[in-house]
């Protein structure tokens, strides 16, 4: 709460028009970039990954950060969304004739995932903590096993040749939609209910919060967007298989959530961007390009002995960086804090009604 007190920053955070403005510019760019090839396709692809990862991270944060559970099922929901959407576009919907039906497929993927979210939501009424973590893990394994055993959807071979329907504007749209909806959820009575469950479930129930309903909604919203992300992912990669959605995928999303910070939308965005971009930047050739301004005497040996081998070492450096970040910010970089841009004005005002002008801080835990 005290890291960002400089006046310039304060001023910036207080400008409510910036976010809508960024949104507009973002949409413009999302259309313009692929249209006019403003950035090369590799950068475009990475941008789409970033978007999908933001969707995953923000939605997982709802359960793992705001609600304080430790769900490992996210990749499972993603798989459900991916397979549902891919089957629709490949086998059911006449996508070839009407590419405009793609959003329907994505929506269906999300809804299917939300439906299966029940499998996790219902035990969560009774089971908490690490015991619930096991249930989510089991869910993930079950999803994987079921997909592997259905030959109609490719079994372990997966579904190749999915039409590439995911585009930068679509990714941008869904990313914004996710952020918007999750943010709305968080700043509603249900969102506060989720927070209170994290803090003290019994007290929450005794303060009139319908904890079942709240958990139910939180799991549904979370798994819905995981499904959406899966659907987009399938139509970007053009190939899915059960392996794509294994525990490693969940681990990636977990890292992004906790790196960015629990119970923070801005944190999740930050975490997803950092993690995804860093993994790409640390590619040997990218890294070499980044430091190519170094004089040859330094660059050449550096490149020869270190950068060229970064291929393996980047996976050593990444977790180290994660550990360091966690030691420094135990709740993640933006843990329990929020850029004020994301906080509804009403909430901001309510907390600062009697605080003298300017003596503010970032809203705690996003309120």
């Amino acid at each position, binding site marked *: 709460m005290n890291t960002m007190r400089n006046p310039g920053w304060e001023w910036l955070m207080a400008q409510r028009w910036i976010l809508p403005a960024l949104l507009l510019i973002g949409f413009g760019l999302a259309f313009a970039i692929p249209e006019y090839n403003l950035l*090369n396709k590799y950068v475009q692809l990475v941008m789409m990954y970033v978007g999908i990862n933001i969707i995953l991270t923000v939605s997982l944060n709802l359960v793992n950060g705001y609600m304080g559970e430790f769900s490992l099922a996210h990749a499972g929901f993603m798989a459900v969304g991916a397979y549902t959407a891919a089957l629709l576009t490949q086998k059911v919907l006449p996508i070839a004739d009407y590419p405009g039906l793609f959003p329907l497929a994505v929506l269906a993927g999300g809804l299917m995932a939300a439906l299966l979210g029940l499998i996790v939501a219902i035990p969560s009424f009774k089971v908490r903590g690490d015991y619930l973590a096991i249930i989510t893990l089991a869910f993930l394994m079950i999803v994987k096993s079921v997909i*592997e055993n259905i030959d109609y959807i490719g079994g372990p071979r997966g579904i190749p040749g999915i039409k590439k329907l995911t585009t930068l504007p679509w990714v941008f749209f869904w990313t914004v939609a996710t952020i918007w909806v999750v943010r709305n959820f968080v700043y509603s009575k249900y969102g506060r209910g989720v927070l209170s469950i994290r803090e003290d479930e019994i007290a929450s129930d005794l303060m009139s919060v319908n904890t079942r309903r709240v958990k139910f909604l939180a799991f549904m919203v979370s798994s819905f967007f995981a499904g959406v992300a899966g659907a987009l992912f399938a139509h970007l990669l053009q190939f899915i298989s059960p392996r*794509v959605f294994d525990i490693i995928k969940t681990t990636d999303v977990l890292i992004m959530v906790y790196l960015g910070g629990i119970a923070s939308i801005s944190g999740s965005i930050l975490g997803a961007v950092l993690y995804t971009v860093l*993994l790409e930047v640390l590619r040997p*050739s990218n890294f070499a390009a980044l430091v190519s301004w170094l004089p040859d005497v330094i660059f050449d040996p550096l490149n020869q002995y270190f950068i060229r081998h970064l*291929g393996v070492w980047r996976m050593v450096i990444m977790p180290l960086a994660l550990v360091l970040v966690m030691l420094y910010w135990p709740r993640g970089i933006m843990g329990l804090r929020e850029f004020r841009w994301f906080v509804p004005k009403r909430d901001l005002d309510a907390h600062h009604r009697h605080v003298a002008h300017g003596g503010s801080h970032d809203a705690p835990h996003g309120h």
Partner: protein
Amino acid sequence: AEKTIKLGVIAELTGDMPAVGASCRNAAELAVKEVNAAGGLQVGKEKMKVELVVEDNAGKADQSAAAAQKLITQDEVVAIVGPNASRYAIPASEIAESEKTVLITPWSTNPKTTMDEKTGKPKDYVFRACFIDPFQGGVLAKFAYQTLKAKKAAVLYDVASDYNKGIAEVFKTNYEKLGGKIVAFETYTTNDKDFSAQLTKIKDAKPDVIFLPNYYNEVPLQVQQAKRLGITVPFIGSDSWGSPELLTLGGADLNGYYFSTHYAADNAAPVAKKFIADYEKAYGAKPDDVAALTYDAFGLLFGAIKSAGKVDREAVRVSLSTLPDYKGVTGDMKFKADSRDPIKSAVILEIKDGKFTYFTNAKP
């Protein structure tokens, strides 16, 4: 500065199959070093040096696609070699196809890698250096039924792995077509180390032969555990056995078993002998089949670039698909006009005295 030819490699350096990635990178670097040592590649009138860009895909499908996209758009490579496993090769191949850049996967045996799902036709730009699953499964079924005279067979395979499952199923179909009986068709999941339940079941079914279309790091465990349970019938395997590591890991347990693969080191052409010696000198280990196939993928590429006479993606594609018979480490190969899968034959090796020995050539 002098002009260079940039070639990309996507390898599984980290993730679930790092050994495959390491072999692939090693062989790629060896191939390029040799060409450059000879002054470069003859393209048209000039000799051009080859520059290699190696990317890791971390054993992830999305990173495979990202790596492919990066190599093509950012590094502007002429062609790509890799990834090896089908589940990584497929997403990379989609990018290569839409970006009109040649991609040769050394080791992906899934038929779908080189096929366009929408049209059912082969992809234009995606090639492979190996044979495909149905071919191998057929070869092995015939070998088991006719050569080994086994009337009852059992299969144990990894149900979560596309490769294993693919071959297992082809084997089953072909074997039954020949008149054999599959008495047990058992599965496990990647990373399992204990197969006792399945093997006990297999023992109960009393097969004449057991087929293990599994990777060389799992096969020794499976064979050892089977022996411990008192199973005495022979085992056969597929090209995934074809790593010298199998012998280090499995030792004498594997003597007397057979598997199909791409080439036989002891019955190899001079190119192969030279490659094996060079590789051993450079890396202190015998090359496995991924290394050999990667080396051949580069051989194919070099040949195609040379005969194209210019460094141009489209030209490379055209000349690759019309390349006359290429004599590689893993045998002679050639692409048919309507296919991206090389015509090549398989060999059956026997494990004898802790060594791979040539047993027979096999055509389906």
